[in-house]
């Protein structure tokens, strides 16, 4: 065994070990279940399940596994819809669905892709660097545990007001942490989000997505099968991370000395994780593991109970075999520890030597903990004495499920009645050419619409050599197969303001935008992962938002024909009794047969025709414009999923058949933002006239520029393709208007009725904002 730390931890420790035998004999012992977060009814349930009081170690396991975070007790009843509202057609490419560490989607040619998005919100507020770093670390381990090589990460972020003194702390730390960890793993960062809003001041959202690829035969599942197979824990040593509250396990305290302090935060070790990735891939390649599970929340409790209950149902583990970083850990603490960079695997006896050789090659520490049994029991011993004897299903799967009361809040009507148009904040709406030009500049330099390059230049986008698209295009695109050019596109989106105004449609809008982003890149949308960031489920209004968002999302997935393959729920995101805006972050994954056909978002060729696809209505409620004016009310833009699907098909066909050279969808900031971004992408301007749009849609120039009507995109069409392209749109009955031409010479963006905008000035305004606040 490789000893990278020579700390001697073999000394026998003297705990008051609470054995199963002892528990049976002492039914009346007081246990700190409330301090561990269990409710009376939950503790009673544990006693019923076991037929006796739990031991200290069992109590530790149930309390972490039955927590909201691990058991989904408040959301489970609603999440079911993701599994129910699916057609056979939607299931056709789903190789592994909800329930495993991450879903797996078939890409064809024997390739498969797995992706998932997760939150690391509250740790990132306490210690932004480490919180965000370990967020990346955790989601990447989920991807490895499916048998995949991780190939890229993304990071949807939401922080407080840009000018609040604490925002810089969170921004600097979280971005450096995501970069520090992801860059060190050699994973290109291909996209994300950055939203500033004071509702996230005490509750920033740091979500992380990872995507990995594998051959079909390499897919691994988290199950422990085959009586006699060995259970091994490998990677970092186990420390006291993430068990702050567990010191209340009084029954386990030391006889002689006090336990040392438990860390307040977890520190990531990206180097250890990088080595773990390579080491796992070598294990998969040699078919050396039968089942594998990453260790995240609830650590060994989660890994042993999930592996056992997903397999033949039994496992025996000797807990003193766990390699420790801190020798004062009690058995319960070892079971609860959330130390990073660890994995657990099941290995046949024949493969033990080969497994050890791979560990030694990569200098990864490991220890054999026990073996798989067919008893249907998870038995954990401490120096041979039984301290846990449970049915693993009761720990991992049969936790409490709550039908929490929910109700549409009383204030919802008033909020929805408060439209932006005609409000106090709407006074002085610009209409003169100079004012419209100033408005465009103000929009694209606002905190949410400004360039995010301050962030993205801290991320390695090149490593791996397969990044076909990343910031600032609509979707990240990674090549999977060098020979054929097969690749995947990914986008993540959420709009907390829309979802606040209408949770059902707001969640659908997040999906629609991510779907549109993926299609805009030329990829065919295939699968969805979501991270549901909400306030406390014990608040009926928040619970209603959550229920509505899940209902909206699952309904919309049916219409768009793409299944949810996995995700994560993050609740209790609130400061005092004030919740964040409901923020369902939706990730959509698409497939490109050849990434050479991807469509970038910027104009390049002089003289190409610019078309606006879709129609424009007056939809300013919840928009970036109204946000800039300090207004939030009314109803979000309408959702038209059939239109989204039709638009998607046009964009995908156009990319495949070479009919467009650029495409950029319209979302936050509307047409004004899309035009400026298309120009700044490669520094190539255009001459635009919107009269046909104004006449057809009955809107004024301001509305045409700033409305956030969905289902729209701007494309640049080579002259030679114009007829073919417009014929296609006409045949599909999709609104399309020629709004201008690309102008590679002028260095300006000219919009009829708006004072000419110089690209240089626009770039300066667009890029200055984040450096101004964050250096």
């Amino acid at each position: 065994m490789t000893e990278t730390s020579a700390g001697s931890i073999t000394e026998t420790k003297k705990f008051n070990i609470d054995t199963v035998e002892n528990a049976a004999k002492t039914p009346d012992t007081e246990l700190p279940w409330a301090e561990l977060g269990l409710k009376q009814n939950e503790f009673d349930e544990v006693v019923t399940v076991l037929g006796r009081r739990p031991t200290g170690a069992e109590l530790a396991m149930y309390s972490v596994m039955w927590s909201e975070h691990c058991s989904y007790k408040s959301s489970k009843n609603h999440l079911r819809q993701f599994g129910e509202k699916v057609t056979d057609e939607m299931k056709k490419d789903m190789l592994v669905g909800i329930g495993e560490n991450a879903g797996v989607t078939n890409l064809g040619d024997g390739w498969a892709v797995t992706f998932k998005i997760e939150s690391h919100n509250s740790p990132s507020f306490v210690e932004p660097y480490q919180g965000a770093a370990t967020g990346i670390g955790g989601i990447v381990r989920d991807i490895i545990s499916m048998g995949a090589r991780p190939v890229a990460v993304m990071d949807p972020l939401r922080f407080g007001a840009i000018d609040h003194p604490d925002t810089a702390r969170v921004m600097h730390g979280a971005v450096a942490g995501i970069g520090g960890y992801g860059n060190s793993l050699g994973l290109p960062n291909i996209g994300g989000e950055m939203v500033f809003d004071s509702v996230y001041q005490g509750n920033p959202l740091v979500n992380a997505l990872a995507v990995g690829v594998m051959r079909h035969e390499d897919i691994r599942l988290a199950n422990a099968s085959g009586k006699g197979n060995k259970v091994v824990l490998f990677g970092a040593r186990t420390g006291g991370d993430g068990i702050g509250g567990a010191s209340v396990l009084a029954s386990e305290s030391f006889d002689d000395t006090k336990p040392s302090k438990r860390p307040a935060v977890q520190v990531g070790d990206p180097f250890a994780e990088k080595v773990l990735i390579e080491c796992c891939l070598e294990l998969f390649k040699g078919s050396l593991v039968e089942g594998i599970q990453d260790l995240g929340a609830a650590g060994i409790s989660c890994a042993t109970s999930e592996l056992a209950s997903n397999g033949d149902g039994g496992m025996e583990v000797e807990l003193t075999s766990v390699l420790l970083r801190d020798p004062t850990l009690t058995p319960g603490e070892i079971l609860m520890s959330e130390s990073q960079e660890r994995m657990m695997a099941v290995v046949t006896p024949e493969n033990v030597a080969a497994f050890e050789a791979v560990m030694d090659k990569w200098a990864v520490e490991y220890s054999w903990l026990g073996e798989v049994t067919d008893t249907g029991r998870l038995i954990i011993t401490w120096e041979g004495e039984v301290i846990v004897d449970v049915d693993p299903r009761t720990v991992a799967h049969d936790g409490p499920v709550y039908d929490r009361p929910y109700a549409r809040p009383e204030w919802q009507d008033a909020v929805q009645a408060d439209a932006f148009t005609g409000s106090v904040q709407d006074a002085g709406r610009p209409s003169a050419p100079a004012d419209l030009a100033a408005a465009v500049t103000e929009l694209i330099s606002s905190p949410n619409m400004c360039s995010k390059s301050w962030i993205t230049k801290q991320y390695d986008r090149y490593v791996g050599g397969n990044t076909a698209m990343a910031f600032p295009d609509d979707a990240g695109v990674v090549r999977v197969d060098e020979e054929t050019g097969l690749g995947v596109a990914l986008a993540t989106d959420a709009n907390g303001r829309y979802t606040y105004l209408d949770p059902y449609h707001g969640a659908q809008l997040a999906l629609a935008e991510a779907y549109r982003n993926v299609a805009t890149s030329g990829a065919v949308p295939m699968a969805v992962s979501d991270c549901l960031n909400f306030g406390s489920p014990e608040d009926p209004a928040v619970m209603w938002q959550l229920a509505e968002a899940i209902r909206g999302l699952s309904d919309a997935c049916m219409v768009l024909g793409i299944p949810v393959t996995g995700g994560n729920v993050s609740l209790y995101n609130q400061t005092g009794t004030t919740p964040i805006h409901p923020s369902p972050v939706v990730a959509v994954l698409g497939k490109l047969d050849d990434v050479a056909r991807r469509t970038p978002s910027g104009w390049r060729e002089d003289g190409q025709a610019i078309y606006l696809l879709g129609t424009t209505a007056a939809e300013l409620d919840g928009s970036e414009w109204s946000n800039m004016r300090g207004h939030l009310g009314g109803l979000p833009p309408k959702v038209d999923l059939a239109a989204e699907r039709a638009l998607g098909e046009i964009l995908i066909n156009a990319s495949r058949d070479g009919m467009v050279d650029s495409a950029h969808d319209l979302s936050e900031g509307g047409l004004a933002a899309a035009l400026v971004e298309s120009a700044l992408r490669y520094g190539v301007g255009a001459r635009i006239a919107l009269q046909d749009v104004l006449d057809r849609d009955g809107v004024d120039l301001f509305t045409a520029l700033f409305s956030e009507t969905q289902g729209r995109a701007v494309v640049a069409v080579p002259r030679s393709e114009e007829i073919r392209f417009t014929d296609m749109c006409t045949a599909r009955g999709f609104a399309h208007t020629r709004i201008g031409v690309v102008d590679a010479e002028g260095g300006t963006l000219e919009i009829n009725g708006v004072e000419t905008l110089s690209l240089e000035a626009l770039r300066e305004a667009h890029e200055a904002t984040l450096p101004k606040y964050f250096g």
Partner: protein
Amino acid sequence: MTELPLIGEATAAGAGAERSLAGAKIGVVTFPGTLDDRDAVRAVRLAGATPVALWHADTTLGDVDAVVIPGGFSYGDYLRAGAIARFAPLMSRIIDAANSDAKLPVLGICNGFQILTESHMLPGSMIKNDQLKFMCRDQLLRVENNTTSWTGDYAAGQEITVPLKNQDGQYIADEKTLDALEAEGRVVFRYVGFNPNGSRRDIAGIANAAGNVVGLMPHPEHAVEAGFGPEIGSDTEGLGFFTSVLNKIVGDNK
């Protein structure tokens, strides 16, 4: 059907490569924490040579004709970038071969450059970027010296764009060393237009006296394939490093 290669697992040369070139073997070293080894392998292959995976713990170099030490965070860069990797068994072989009469060509990219300075194969050292942040950007470079083993295919004074990405990329050395490097033409690459990390005299890369050992912070292996390289300029301007050494090897063997 292609298999997903493991890190450092080198695939054979592309079918189109000329036989004489494909015969040249270029080793690509993997340390724990190396990240750009697969990219370097791809670059070698696209240049027409045969990539050979080398493992840090190996005790022989085999029969490679040149060695690339790619970028990444060997041992996490935790102590100093390259500080721990330099003591790997394979590094002693590389040092010996580079200093032997055969003058094995060695290219250190980014972390590889840092390893070469920590090993004292190249003078000076790297400290944190002056803006203290990791920086990823497309960087314009000038090839100051086209007589090294790795730059023969460029014109002297040619400007090329390749990606740059690092946190500890500020090249420093004492004035005497810097003057000597300049005088001997051993400053091989200089940043043009923008010095991204505060490096002395805009130095992006240097060579040893014999010109067979070259180190630089920017990443030529990320600029070898159309559609996957820098967005400004041509995206394959890094390929010349690999064709240069190949021509040198083939020329030497004639």
